[in-house]
């Protein structure tokens, strides 16, 4: 499938041109002075000079926006992988700078881009829709995250709904209409997406129900049935009819076609991200008009095989070596994310590999650690756990009440040392191993798992 690149129609105003120059200078300075990757500073300067800069840069581009509480960096990466051969060049804010300054920097960095895939912080969706008139908006999920910093879930869902309702006008432009690809299994997402004129519903699953029990429409109660179906006990809100859904390792279309979803990336939640992206990708190209049937068959095969080769996302899920042992780096920022990572640990089995947990509570993480009590740490019972990070004492108390045996080590690298000692058998874990477990095999030992929240993860990667 090919696309006639229309090219960005960037007839920039003098002001916008000056702002673009400022972004370049700012990015260059920031990189030269070694004060960051140069993605945010320049963007901020540019927006200060020309507040409409994002809209000017995005004019004529095919834009996809990806948002949600969890998985947006991964889904963005997967969508880039799906489209990189068809939309050339393609811009993306792949460094995780997901607010407007980061979007500006990404677009300035690819001046000839015909398309852009932008990860968007949940609270900026409305602003981004207005500035970029996107072809596709992917809504992954919505759950609690850093409540001392970001508006609570319901305020956020109302803002999404308003922003998506405004898409009504955009669809009047015919072929430039926006398609929203939304997770049908998440009541919060559904309530917001229902306001949009054109939606593809994907049954991507939902690991976290606790934020969704109150009906966003009427305050009634959402009842979850078997197979992820759900409905409000008071009003009409219910899971919409799905265009496609994920069934373990297969993507099933409403017309019954099944396609394997085999990824290098581990875990069900990554297959869910891939399912959403697979439905979204065709709409970035010419062949699928917003009103047409969801793509199936050959092109879906192509997209799925392109995603299959993605093996890490900004270091997440990547492996590194520490003192001769493999360490897998995992990031989780909120209860839903941690739950998904625990699913992943269970999926790969093997309770013998030590797990290092690192928790910070800096500004980017949220200053309040109460969320630790919403994470089902009880699921780690039986594993060897090392607690580290700035807030290791909060974590240690949480683990104590989850009755998970653990050791506390203040420095994250020393915590990895400790895990290596445990793994090498120099020190047996405090909890006796499960007698019913399979005997140790001679196969390659499982990697040590490192799970950190946002700045804890970034810190460790910097130091490795």
């Amino acid at each position, binding site marked *: 499938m090919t696309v006639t690149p229309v090219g960005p129609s960037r007839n920039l105003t003098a002001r916008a041109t000056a702002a673009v120059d400022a972004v370049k200078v700012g990015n260059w300075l920031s990189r030269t002075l070694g004060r960051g990757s140069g993605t945010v500073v320049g963007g901020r300067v540019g927006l200060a000079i020309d507040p409409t800069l994002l809209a000017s840069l995005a004019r004529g581009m095919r834009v996809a926006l990806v948002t949600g509480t969890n998985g947006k960096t991964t889904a963005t990466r997967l969508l880039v992988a799906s489209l990189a051969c068809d939309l050339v060049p393609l811009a993306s804010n792949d460094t995780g700078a997901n607010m407007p300054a980061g979007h500006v920097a990404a677009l300035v960095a690819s001046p000839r881009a015909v398309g852009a895939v932008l990860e968007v912080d949940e609270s900026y969706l409305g602003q981004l829709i207005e500035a970029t008139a996107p072809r596709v908006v992917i809504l992954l999920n919505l759950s609690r995250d850093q*409540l*001392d910093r970001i508006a609570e879930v319901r305020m956020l869902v109302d803002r999404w709904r308003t922003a998506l309702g405004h898409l009504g006008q955009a669809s009047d432009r015919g072929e430039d209409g926006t398609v929203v690809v939304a997770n049908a299994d998440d009541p919060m997402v559904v309530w917001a997406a229902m306001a949009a004129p054109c939606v593809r519903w994907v049954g991507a699953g939902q690991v976290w129900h606790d934020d969704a029990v*109150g009906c966003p429409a009427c305050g009634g109660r959402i009842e979850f049935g078997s197979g992820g179906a759900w409905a409000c006990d008071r009003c009409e809100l219910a899971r919409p009819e799905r265009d496609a859904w994920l069934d373990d390792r297969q993507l099933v279309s409403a017309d019954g076609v099944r396609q394997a979803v085999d990824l290098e990336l581990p875990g069900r939640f990554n297959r869910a991200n891939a399912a959403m992206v697979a439905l979204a990708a065709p709409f970035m190209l010419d062949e699928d008009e917003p009103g047409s049937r969801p793509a199936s068959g050959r092109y879906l095969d192509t997209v799925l095989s392109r995603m299959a080769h993605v093996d890490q996302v900004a270091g997440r899920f990547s492996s590194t070596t520490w003192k001769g042992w493999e360490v897998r780096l995992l990031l989780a920022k909120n209860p839903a994310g941690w739950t998904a990572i625990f699913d992943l640990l269970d999926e790969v089995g093997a309770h013998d590999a030590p797990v290092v947990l690192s928790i910070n509570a800096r500004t980017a993480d949220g200053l309040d650690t109460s969320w630790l009590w919403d994470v089902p740490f009880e699921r780690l019972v039986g594993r060897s756990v090392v607690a580290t990070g700035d807030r290791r*004492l909060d974590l240690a*108390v949480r683990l104590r009440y989850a009755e998970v045996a653990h050791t506390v080590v203040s420095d994250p690298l020393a915590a990895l040392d400790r895990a290596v000692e445990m793994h090498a058998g120099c020190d047996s874990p405090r909890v006796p191993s499960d007698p019913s477990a399979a005997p140790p095999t001679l196969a390659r030992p499982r990697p040590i798992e490192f799970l950190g929240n946002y700045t804890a993860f970034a810190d460790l990667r910097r130091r490795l």
Partner: protein
Amino acid sequence: MSPGDRNSALTIAIVFPDLLGTYGDGGNGIVLARRAAWRGMGVELVQAGSGRPLPSADIYCIGGGEDGPQVRAATSLNEDGTMARAVEQGAVVFGVCAGYQLLGRSFPDSTDRAHDGLGLLDITTRKGTGPRAVGELVATMAPDAPHQAGGAALPRLTGFENHGGVTSVGPSARALARVVRGVGNGGGDGTEGAWSGRVVGTYLHGPVLARNIALADLLLGWAVDPSDSPEPLPPLDDSEETALRTERLRAVERSDRGHVVSRLFRAGR
């Protein structure tokens, strides 16, 4: 009666975790249940979901939540009536944040319309006019606050607050503590939380009992031994909780010193 003599298990109910529990508040029930179990008591932790009759329990923990669910929870609890009857018979109630507000006479919704609370505490909450109170809070216990079994005063409260309400404490209730750092009740009298009989409320959300285990043991002691001078509970190894308390109290002191230095610096310019 000592804990070992109890025939029936202690029942701890987390009230409406599906409506209230935005900030990990269910952790308070976990802390109480574990601390009872570690002392060899029979204990049952019940997740009492909304839409069903509230089970009878020895301790009710009520968490925080958003405006809509808070109104629903208060309405259901008033219609149900179980909690009010249980309190008359000596049950312990511990409410945090929105769960604290709804124990009072009235509380506001997002439009500042007043809703009836349970009336188990003589407190009244209105919407604050300033910014939300968000951050670490430290408070010393009020002199007439309940004392630990054995007579010692409770140590300082430490926790995290995140609320926009202003609560005034009426004559039939007592303030729980005096704010050293943070906002608390926010009515200008420098108080935090309130209590009356065996009903205790605080703005410290999340699992505040994990950082304040003496308060946790006070509530547990009340439930185990209904007499006016309960026996102290057997001690536990609380080294991890103590380390966390110490570290959090130091962090607040450190940041307070930072504020003073920056104020002096500004004043000097």
